[in-house]
């Protein structure tokens, strides 16, 4: 079973990495979703695998799964949702603003003007 889980985590990582290396926004967003799956599972796996022993306190229980990684992962899942939402909205706004959903940028480098405007405008005014 451990081999299945480990290989599954590896597979999710590989797919995630491959997708975030794509040129358009949407595959990158999906890639981050895959990476979240992989990371959450990995974190969960640090508590080792336990079957049929949920961390619900009961008097007759013979043992429990490690609750700490579970608590960490629970919030991590919700936070990854927040991140996915933010990234996809960022992609959406970028697309609406520029009409392109490429994440590759201009190969010639950043356009001049733009961020240095604050410097130049100050100098321009007497």
């Amino acid at each position: 079973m451990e081999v299945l889980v480990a290989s599954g985590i590896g597979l999710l990582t590989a797919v995630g990495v491959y997708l975030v290396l794509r040129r358009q926004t949407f595959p990158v967003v999906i890639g981050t979703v895959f990476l979240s799956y992989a990371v959450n599972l990995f974190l969960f796996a640090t508590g080792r695998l336990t079957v049929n022993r949920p961390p619900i306190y009961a008097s007759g229980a013979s043992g429990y799964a490690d609750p700490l990684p579970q608590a960490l992962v629970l919030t991590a899942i919700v936070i990854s949702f927040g991140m996915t939402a933010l990234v996809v909205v960022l992609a959406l706004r970028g697309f609406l603003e520029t009409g392109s959903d490429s994440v590759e940028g201009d190969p010639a480098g950043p356009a001049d003007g733009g961020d240095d405007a604050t410097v130049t405008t100050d100098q321009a005014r007497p």
Partner: protein
Amino acid sequence: MNLILVPLIPLLGALLPPLVARSGRDTAMAGTLAVTLTSLVLLLVEAPAVYRGETVLAGTAWVPEIGLSFRFFADGLGLFFATMILAIGALIIVYARYYLSRQDSIGRFYAYLLLFQGAMVGIVLSDNILLMLIFWELTSLSSFLLIGFWSHAAAGRQGARMALVVTGGGGLLLTAGMLVLGHVGGSYELSVLLTKGEVIKASPLYPLILTLVLAGAFTKSAQFPFHFWLPHAMAAPTPVSAYLHSATMVKAGVFLLARLWPVLAGTELWVAIVAPVGLVTMLVGAWIALFKDDLKAILAYSTVSHLGLMVMLLGFGTPYAAVACVFHILNHATFKAALFMAAGIVDHEAGTRDIRRLGGLAKLMPVTAVLAGIASASMAGLPPLNGFLSKEMMLEAAASGPLGGLGWLIPVGATLAALVSVAYSVRLAVGTFAGPARHDYPHHPHDPGAGMWLPVALLVGLVVAIGLMPALIAGPIVARTAQAVIGGAPLPYYSLSLWHGLTPALFMSVAAVAGGLVAFRGHALLARWRAPWPRPEAKALFDTAVAATVFAARWFTRRANVESLPRTIAIVTVSVLIVALWAFARGEHGAGARAMMPVHLVALVAWAALIAASAVVVLKHGNRLLTLILTSVVGLIVSLAFIQFSAPDLALTQISVEVVSTILLLLALNLLPKTTPPEMETRRKVRDGAIAVAAGVGVAALALAILTRDFTTISDYHIAQSKPGGGGTNVVNVILVDFRGFDTFGEIIVLGIAALAIFALLDTALRGPAARRLDAMRQGLESAEAHPLILVVATRALLPLAFTVGVFIFLRGHNQPGGGFIAGLVVAIAYIMQYMASGYAWSHQRARFDAHTLVGAGVVIAGLTGLGSLLFGRPFLTSSFGYFHIPLIGEVELATAMAFDTGVFLAVVGTVLLALAQISRIEARAERSPVPEGPADIRLPRERDAATAKRED
């Protein structure tokens, strides 16, 4: 304990002026003044003890691990500076009320001023040098705000930026110096360090400490070659110039040198660096001041010159010079602040401060003229004013200066500087006030109201009083302060009086006055002589340096091409891989000893499904909808894995998050292109594939290595304490809301921030190019069946049911799988269904709560629950619980953790709703026709009644 309040009251009081500014400018002034005077009174309460020779200590530990404490101490020096800062501050507050115009936001101004005042008092009273650094940086920041107060003026912004760069940069060096100093001295408390002078001076690190500390002091006190920022900072409103740039902030560097005098001064290195820098600054400042035409520029360079004088005196390293320095700090603060305020009055009344357009004001504004004339005479060092006394002492110290071979340079240089300062002082006073009245002033000058000249008059009164009766008025202050500067050594012989006999200093003084008058007479000649000199313009050099930095940064950015996300991620991933490989190759490894679990068929099927889904995603990611569906398949398999491995909470969370994010991505995909153009380059695919496979194999190997090894856990404690300590049997939930509640609190804040960022991103998308593109998109979207009937009916029927489920999951969460996170997601899904089925307009109109409010309420409730435990004397977020008997219902457990979980619940609902509703709102804009309000084809009878009823209301 009062001592702590002295810096804290202005810092906290900075909140007051913006609040009371609405009630008028007088109220704002009164409030601000009250803050400053309270602080001053609390300080002066300590004065008797200090003057009995005690050192007042107060404070508490802060972060003892790094030597940071919140400790203050007042000795003669600290008390002297703090009194000066607060007293002059009070005068400036009154003056500023009348100086600033109605358009200026006086509340903001006073807030900055109090912030600065508190920080400055903090510097001079800090016992801990790390604490002092914090205040030091605060003065840099608040002076940035004050210099740039008129943010509409380019000069103000540039001056503020330059001051921040120079003093902030110096602050960084000083930080390094203080850290080394504390390390060598074995303590960060000044009260200890001051006794460790011998150890520190003998240390091999002494030159390093000295260089770094001097860098901080010289930048702050505008010493050559860092003097250039001060004149540019004069773009500030005049009250700021008078306060920061004459009396207080620029003296922080001098204060630091005086404070550390017992620790650092007296070595050959000290004398060789500090005295010449001071001398050069004194000369350069005075020389430039002579040729400036702007009143404030003259005063600015004169301040540079006088700061140089103080630094030079400290640089001599002799006790007598230290006494002279202390005396001059006092005198300079009085006459220079008075002169700045007088210059402000002239500017205010005459409409210009250009000396070439002024003159003859004595008849028009006699009060100002008399006050400014006396202050100028003191600046020139004429008897019987206080400037004369300290200048005399300075010349005396210079004449007996300690520099061996070049000994004659110091007295000659000092006399020369005194000579020039006579010349510019006379030029300032005569050029502004003497001569016949003119008819071409921009305004009609006359004396201002008492509010403006009274503060000046008070200071000028001091100038005269100290000059006439120095020993009586300033004697004890100078003695006590100088004693604090020179440490344990006995005070040298000195006498504060006008007549010392025929000393060398007197001859130097006479020479300076005579020469100064000659120089004033021949000013035109001197100016012509100076005209062809090369004059490096500091501002141009500074701007060039800034531009060069920007250019270099842009060059690097272009070369690294970090605009390309794939490239950046590839670089990062490969770097991580290389580091991991390197670590792997160096370590020892073998198979784990933990027994593996047997594989069963269901797991194998799920694993195969995962592989198949992943493979299709990789191969067919051009089809975005398919990718999305397969992604949720993968998400389902992940939640199955959680169920399998005893994590029911995680499975519930994962599956609800899956629903929410699939809806979200679907909504986004509706507006994004539906396909990704296929990539043609095989090379690129192979390269990315290789990186991805390497990363995957690495993570898989790591996971396997962990899974096959035994471990020890700290969770046993959590499990054991869950019921008795946290009152719940669901250990995961108890950890979230109790043991690690602070983490959870942080996490819901992060969620809230993400939601607000989403709102900000999408709210503004309804304007500008994004909105135009949305409008152009209409033809592409079908909205004929925007609200399918079955969906509408089903979702509405489901809404109460879903709420019930949500409440149920929430309530059982403490003991059984469930809790605030999951319940929040479930309820949010129920809401989102309404948006999907019935449209944005319909749902939004019926929403009872604003999503922003939900997020905010969630965070606030969680925070208040945590604070509640403080009331019972327990640490933040300590939970408590009890069992209550309710008639009919029976035994019920109530825990404060429930309230905390409610906060979590609300924050999650708010975040999800805010994100999804915002996208729906964008979507609504892109839909073809104005969307019918709700399902257009049917209208439930009851609802129609409700609508009519509402209209009748």
